[in-house]
């Protein structure tokens, strides 16, 4: 009996050992795997911690670097001329900001000319010093604060129509940009809000042109931010606007200074080398004055705006160019309406531009339909009805298609 019991115990012991040994071996193996996994996880957590710390460090900088801008491409079909695909512009805007103390802003403008060459221009570059809640000092090349179109509305994703109003482009009535020192900001006035900009700058230059090689006439005002003041007198200007209610803004602008003819155009090759500089050297500074007024009213789906600007160049007593002064004058009004609950928008604009040259004068009505794919990506179709001097390009109606993207 004892023997059988002993045998039974041995059997049980053998069974337990035979079961336990593989389990123990398996447990040792699982522990090793687990340890390996823990080690791997530990390494990953350490790496993630390091990454998060670096990310957190970079996301709280005193210096911010930011790029914005806009671009547009399109198709132009004049009634008398060839249809063309065009690249309007690619305009990256760079911001380098240090806290709320200073920001460097710069916009470059790239486009492709008719000859296929890529053209680059510095649209503006300013260092903006935020000196108080109500004033910022800008130094450098800045967009002209005269009116609203040049400083706020000209980017293609902002402009409701695929072209600029007549007189608000280059050599038009409205100044484009200038180089100098500007103070701008906004402040409450009673129950109203206001904003302002005042500046001192190098001012514009003039160019004159001849058709008969006998007499030069003033061709245009090149108010595009020159890096030197060739007439020696600083130009002063600014804009003041009030917002009697939040949906209405009314602004008045002025500029006054001097400007000189610095370029004689249209291929008059001087018979004697150096004669052209002699011509330029005889030019004297003329009075340069600009006045402007603008308004905007927007409510819900509708916006209605308008702008008037007049540039006047005074007489000169000496010089190659005719002594008479000249006036450039332009106005436009624009109504835009977006269909409620849809992405479709209609726009109509009336514009009129008068210059000293009949071939440039134009009265224009532009009709447009926009499809707002997203708030910063807009497909525009426009038709310009131009009434200018018969036979001139200013008299040619045009159909324009444009894709504009703000980023």
């Amino acid at each position, binding site marked *: 009996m004892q023997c059988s019991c002993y045998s039974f115990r041995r059997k049980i012991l053998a069974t337990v050992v035979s079961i336990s040994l593989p389990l123990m071996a398996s447990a040792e193996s699982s522990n090793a795997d687990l340890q390996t996994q823990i080690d791997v996880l530990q390494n990953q957590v350490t790496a993630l911690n390091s990454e*998060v710390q670096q*990310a*957190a*460090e*970079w*996301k*709280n*900088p005193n210096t*911010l670097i*930011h790029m*914005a801008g806009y671009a547009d491409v399109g198709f132009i079909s004049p009634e008398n001329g060839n249809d063309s695909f065009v690249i309007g512009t690619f305009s990256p*805007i760079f*911001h380098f*900001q240090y*806290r*709320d*103390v200073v*920001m460097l802003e710069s916009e470059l403008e790239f486009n492709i000319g008719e000859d296929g060459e890529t053209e680059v221009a510095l649209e503006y570059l300013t260092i*903006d010093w*935020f*000196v*108080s*809640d*109500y*004033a*910022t000092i*800008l130094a450098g090349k800045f967009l002209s604060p005269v009116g*609203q179109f040049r*400083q*706020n509305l000209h*980017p293609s*994703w*902002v402009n409701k129509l695929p072209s600029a109003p007549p007189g608000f482009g280059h050599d038009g009535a409205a100044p484009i940009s200038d180089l100098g020192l500007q103070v*701008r*900001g*906004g*402040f*409450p006035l009673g129950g109203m*809000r*206001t*904003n*302002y*900009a005042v500046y001192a700058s190098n001012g514009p230059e003039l160019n004159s042109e001849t058709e008969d090689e006998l007499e030069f006439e003033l061709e245009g005002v090149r108010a595009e931010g020159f890096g030197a003041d060739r007439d020696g007198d600083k130009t002063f200007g600014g804009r003041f606007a009030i917002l009697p209610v*939040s949906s209405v*803004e009314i602004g008045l602008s002025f500029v006054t200074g001097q400007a000189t003819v610095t370029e004689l155009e249209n291929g008059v090759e001087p018979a004697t080398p150096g004669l052209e500089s002699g011509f330029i050297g005889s030019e004297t500074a003329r009075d340069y004055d600009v006045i402007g007024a603008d308004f*905007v009213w*927007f409510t*819900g*789906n509708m*916006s209605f705006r308008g702008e008037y600007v007049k540039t006047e160049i005074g007489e000169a007593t000496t010089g190659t160019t005719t002594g008479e002064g000249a006036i450039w004058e332009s106005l436009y009004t624009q109504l835009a309406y977006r269909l*409620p*609950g*849809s*992405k479709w928008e209609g726009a109509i604009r009336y514009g009129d531009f008068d210059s000293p040259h009949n071939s440039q004068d134009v009265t224009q009505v532009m009709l447009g339909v926009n499809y*707002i*794919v*997203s*708030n*910063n990506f*807009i497909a525009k179709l426009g038709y310009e009805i131009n009434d200018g001097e018969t036979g001139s390009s200013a008299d040619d109606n045009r159909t324009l298609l444009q894709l504009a993207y703000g980023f």
Partner: protein
Amino acid sequence: MKNISNKIYSQLFKLSRACIVLLTVGYSLPTTAADYPEAGNFSNGSKVWADNCNRCHNMRGPKELKDDQWISTAFHMRLRAGLTGQETRDIITFLQASNTKTVVSGATQVSAVISKGSTGKETYEKTCIACHAGDGKGAFPGTPDFTSSDGVLSQSDSVLMDHIINGFQSEGSPMAMPPKGGNPNLSETDVSKVLGHIRKVFGR
């Protein structure tokens, strides 16, 4: 020699004139701005945002940029739109608070001062009115007209509560409403109250 002296005097005169201007500006205004980023007022920010951005261009929704990108963008627009520094801070506060944060940890974000009303009417006036307007017809394109008989208010409370709490983009609207109108302090009870107010005042 006399000419040279005159030129030097003339240049010194011009230089001193410029220095006087700069010193006047420097002493009359703080040379450095206040703490950065300084918290603004959410409600005022939403109002200033709605009142100003649409004056020139289509509204850009809070989700279009990251929090730090909104800072530079808002400072850029401060100059363009003639905003005050306080208005700029308010707008940044509103946009950052309304932004759906894909990266929360470490993001440059101001501490939003977001108040909420105790009644549906107060909450509407502090949080909703900037976009939906006092008359409920929408302050700018893309916001629905509450007064329309077959408009958004024809939907059930549960659907509208879900839209308000989680955010929603209406068909045809290029911009989404942020969750809770951008005010994370709103509770479900607050949302229910403001929905009741909207139905009572604008419902047909």
